[in-house]
């Protein structure tokens, strides 16, 4: 069990590093899908099968498809890869990398501080999650529904194209109206 966890964690970390260093957006996206899949294996090992399934269905399924659609719509191909290659110089990433390492060292220190012995991890089945979700957290579910509604409306509103008016008389008329 532990061996599987360490292998999966290594896969997750390697693929995440690949996500933030790739030049081609599609490659980064595919590495992110691998990272999400291995993270869902970790959820399964932690005794959270419901969260693991949702991770695959929603993250690796729905959200990544959205990203792929946008990348295909914008036609980000080789030009973007070349551009990224120019941007991603050691001078650019060395500073943030040092800051991140310091932050990780702090987190490592906080996590490794001595505390009482931890019991083994317990499985939380989806029934308990559902009961907890629809009794004490019901207001949270409703708020999440409102948030999703706001997301849909906002995306539909922001994403619509305004037709540019090229004819100068039409443009003047438009300005006079407003």
């Amino acid at each position, binding site marked *: 069990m532990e061996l599987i966890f360490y292998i999966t964690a290594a896969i997750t970390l390697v693929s995440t590093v690949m996500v933030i260093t790739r030049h081609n957006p599609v490659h980064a996206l595919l590495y992110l899908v691998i990272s999400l899949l291995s993270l869902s294996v970790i959820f399964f090992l932690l*005794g959270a099968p419901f969260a693991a399934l949702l991770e695959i269905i929603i993250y690796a399924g729905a*959200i990544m498809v959205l990203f792929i659609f946008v990348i295909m719509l914008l036609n980000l191909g080789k030009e973007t890869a070349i551009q990224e290659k120019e941007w991603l110089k050691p001078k650019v990433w060395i500073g943030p990398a040092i800051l991140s390492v310091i932050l990780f060292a702090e987190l490592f220190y906080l*996590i490794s501080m001595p505390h009482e012995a931890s019991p083994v991890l317990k499985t939380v089945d989806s029934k308990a999650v559902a009961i907890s979700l629809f009794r004490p957290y019901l207001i*949270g579910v409703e708020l999440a529904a409102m948030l999703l509604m706001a997301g849909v409306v906002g*995306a539909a509103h922001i994403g619509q194209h305004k037709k540019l008016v090229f004819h100068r008389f039409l443009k003047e008329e438009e300005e006079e109206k407003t």
Partner: protein
Amino acid sequence: MKSSISIEMILLLAALLFVLGIAGVIIRKNIIFMLLSVEVMLNAAGLAFVAAGAHLGQPDGQVMFLFILAMAAAEVSVGLALILQIYHQHKSLDIDKLKEMKG
């Protein structure tokens, strides 16, 4: 199913993922990559929640993970719509070219 993975290792993994996400947000100049890094950070937070829930044997961790999932979906849809709009107006995804927002 009882697993013998220690909670420290899982939290360490979550911390590493979060730090990688932060580094990605700072390093990258392309907005799409920044959004991907934000997704990585949200995932790390979700992993920490699920690990804590499994550690305490409470369902609250997974409930919080569900809320993070819903939030991420809404955030990504709005963010991608914004990216499309930026690309149509500026023909570029370079954040340095968006200085006219004076933000």
